[in-house]
């Protein structure tokens, strides 16, 4: 599936949950409307989205937390699976966009295609895993995913796409942080 198709399906399932998105999924997520409320766009620290989301999930266990991660990003901080598995937030949904490349820097191939994120997550203490190859299957499966006690890792097969680096390196992280902090404080 395309990144955009995955984002559109996930936006429709977000409800009053909190989302964190990182790297190349950021733009299609915003264009799909996912970043308008209760969202944090994590740029500038590759691999941190999932543990950033873990902190929010521990603070707000009453809400779904959806992390839209990349495969290259997750490999940067693979130990985060163990940390998340140990804390076991029950409404934590970790979507891994797997395309086998580093999209932001020009679609260079990752070190290996031999890893299995679902097996790694299970071994690290995640309660369940799912895997979807098409947007249609993802849409059909999301109700079951979000009814499953977390942490849950969901592997999405994403087509590599040509992408341009559009950021100039200046990103308003503080503005995103404050916006979400205030939204959560209001409830």
């Amino acid at each position, binding site marked *: 599936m395309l990144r955009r198709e995955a984002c559109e399906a996930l936006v429709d399932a977000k409800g009053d949950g909190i989302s964190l998105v990182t790297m190349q999924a950021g733009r299609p997520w915003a264009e799909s409307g996912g970043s308008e409320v209760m969202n944090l766009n994590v740029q500038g*620290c590759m691999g941190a989205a999932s*543990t950033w989301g873990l*902190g929010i*999930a521990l*603070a707000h266990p009453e809400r779904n937390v959806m992390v839209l991660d990349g495969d290259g990003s997750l490999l940067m901080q693979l130990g*985060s699976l163990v*940390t998340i598995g140990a804390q076991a937030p029950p409404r934590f949904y970790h979507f891994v966009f797997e395309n086998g490349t580093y999209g932001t820097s020009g679609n260079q191939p990752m070190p290996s295609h031999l890893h299995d994120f679902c097996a790694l997550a299970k071994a690290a203490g995640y309660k369940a895993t799912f895997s979807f190859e098409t947007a249609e299957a993802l849409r059909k499966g999301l109700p079951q995913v979000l009814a499953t006690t977390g942490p849950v890792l969901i592997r999405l097969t994403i087509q590599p796409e040509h992408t341009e680096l559009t950021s100039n390196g200046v990103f308003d*992280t503080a503005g995103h942080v404050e916006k979400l902090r205030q939204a*959560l404080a209001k409830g």
Partner: protein
Amino acid sequence: MPGMATESPVAPARAARSIPAELLLAEIQALGITHMLNVPDTHQKSLLALMAKQDQPKLITTCTEDEALAVHAGLYIGGQKPMISIQNTGLCACMNALRGILLEGHIPAVLMIGLLHSEPNVPPRQSRVLTVRLTEPTLETWGIPYYLMDTEDDVHYLRDAYQRSYDEHGPVAVLIGAKTA
């Protein structure tokens, strides 16, 4: 002693001392700290052991310092009052997260940083150990204020650092120069 990014303080000679873990924990609890994110540190060993027996703060061990900073940021966004405990080698390990999360996110954070292998009676920047010697200049380069805690008389630096992190919306370090006891 407190430090500033723009200062190059010359610390006085330091005697072989220890910092009572009970005092530190009492100060942490008095500040209302809800979570302590940590990657284990030799200097703070007894403090970590003490916290493991308490409900407040909740002690969360992460696999890396990067993760500790990210979880801290998420807890802060969620309205909690977390703190971080690592050691000086861990500071080196998490510099990108320090920049990308705490500095660029303007996130208040106190980092208790154990000065692993620091020598009694030797100011950190005169240490024969490179990681000790580099700690203060590294923090200064990155514009992160710091305090050097050597004795029980310095425990109030924790409160000072906490207040400063909120006043200035960013990270502040408390260097643990002696082992907690």
